[in-house]
């Protein structure tokens, strides 16, 4: 199981703990990640909001690099994931556009290798049974709400490895790790991450709705697979200091449950510390 790993910009900065936990967990589970040499930013929402071809070219450069390496891409950030998959899909569906893309990126590209999200790889290729065997520290009685956000599941013709309205892969994963997974209806709601810096009040309102919904469902923490949701949910929770909800990356909780060391150094990077919550559960 070998992939070209595309960390994306957030994992080098605001989501360091996601990158560290992804690398540690994959290496432990036998998923071989080779960082895509000289990868560049996918352009994210600013790319496609500005120019359709700029978005394709910024994503396409990375697709061409992976093709050169002869590997499918494994990606951790759903925002990168949707950008890489969108360009791949459009070029596959419209071969006449391929030439335009090749001209824009100045590199050969034949739309051969695809992109997968690490949640998909871990749930569908490693699988719950294999993971269950590895669990040494079950996340017993830790009540979590699994939050998928937008780009893991939408648009379904481009990205989805799961149901677009009621995805369950992360729920199944956390259940395997021994956590008490709460069912709730906020799974695929948007947290407003793309507006977190430009329209703060909108992001705050959406984050409040999501965190309150999770708390009403009995969750003590939210689990996500997105660095933008993670930082938005941490930064824009304006509720009283006492009852702020810790936000975990799914890979951090896998690492904790399968007994990896250094997990504390990941949790120390959180803006909302989960250490008290974990300690109260003997984790």
């Amino acid at each position: 199981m070998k992939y070209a790993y595309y960390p994306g910009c957030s994992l080098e900065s605001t989501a360091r703990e996601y990158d560290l936990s992804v690398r540690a967990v994959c290496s432990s589970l036998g998923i071989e990640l080779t960082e895509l040499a000289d990868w560049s930013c996918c352009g994210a929402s600013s790319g496609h909001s500005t120019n359709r071809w700029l978005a394709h070219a910024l994503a396409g450069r990375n697709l061409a690099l992976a093709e050169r390496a002869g590997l499918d891409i494994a990606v951790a950030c759903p925002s990168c994931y949707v950008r890489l998959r969108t360009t791949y899909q459009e070029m596959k569906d419209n071969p006449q556009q391929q030439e335009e893309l090749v001209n824009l990126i100045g590199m050969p590209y034949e739309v051969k290798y695809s992109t997968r999200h690490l949640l998909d790889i871990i749930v569908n290729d490693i699988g719950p049974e294999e993971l269950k065997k590895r669990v040494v520290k079950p996340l017993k009685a830790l009540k979590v709400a699994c939050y998928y956000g937008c780009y893991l599941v939408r648009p379904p013709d481009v990205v989805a490895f799961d149901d677009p309205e009621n995805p369950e892969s992360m729920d199944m994963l956390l259940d395997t790790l021994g956590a008490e997974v709460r069912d709730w209806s906020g799974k695929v709601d948007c947290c407003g991450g793309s507006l977190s810096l430009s329209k703060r009040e909108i992001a705050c309102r959406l984050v409040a709705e999501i965190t309150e919904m999770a708390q009403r469902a009995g969750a003590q923490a939210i689990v996500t697979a997105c660095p933008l949701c993670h930082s938005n949910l941490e930064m824009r929770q304006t509720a009283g200091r006492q009852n702020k909800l810790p936000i975990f990356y799914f890979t951090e909780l896998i690492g904790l449950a399968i007994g990896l060391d250094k997990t504390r150094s990941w949790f120390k990077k959180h803006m909302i510390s989960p250490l008290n919550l974990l300690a109260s559960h003997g984790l």
Partner: protein
Amino acid sequence: MPYFDKNGQTTYDANFYQQVKAASGTNIDRCYQCLTCSLGCPVTFAMDYLPNQLVRMVQLGLKQPTLTSATIWICADCEACATRCPNDVEILRLMDALREIAQQEGIRGKEKTVAAFHQAFLASIKRWGRQHELSMLLQLKFKTADFFSDIALGIKMLLKGKLKLLPPRFGDLRGVRAIFQRIEKRITGGERA
């Protein structure tokens, strides 16, 4: 929705509908105003026109109110609308096309901060090949003359190593800058796919 301005002049542009249709590549003719998009949209509370209204405005060629609307910038790109549309109207592509046209035609809309964010974000890619959050944030603060918000958050993030002081190390800057140049050439050449 104004078909006439206060001087009695028509406000529609007969070419606008075709222009948007070509730029977005989605078939907005299929919309039958069921409102599913607007009902599932998480940010309608901050919009001046609902997504379904915007579709209708484009069909009617109401260029000016469409391109100056807050809606095109408030849209958070969550794709809930397009996922649920019974007629496969890809509204996010429509929003993208409207933002693209607005920027190319130099139309300054109501939500300047969002456009400024996109510019700062892309400038960082052009400069460093990857995102350098700290310099991007500083540029955004200068562009919007908003110096004091989130300072405490920013300091906490720096201390936790979540914001890097130094820009990312990246090799093929020439390659990435060439992409930007080819795109700019494409835009000034008036080409469209």
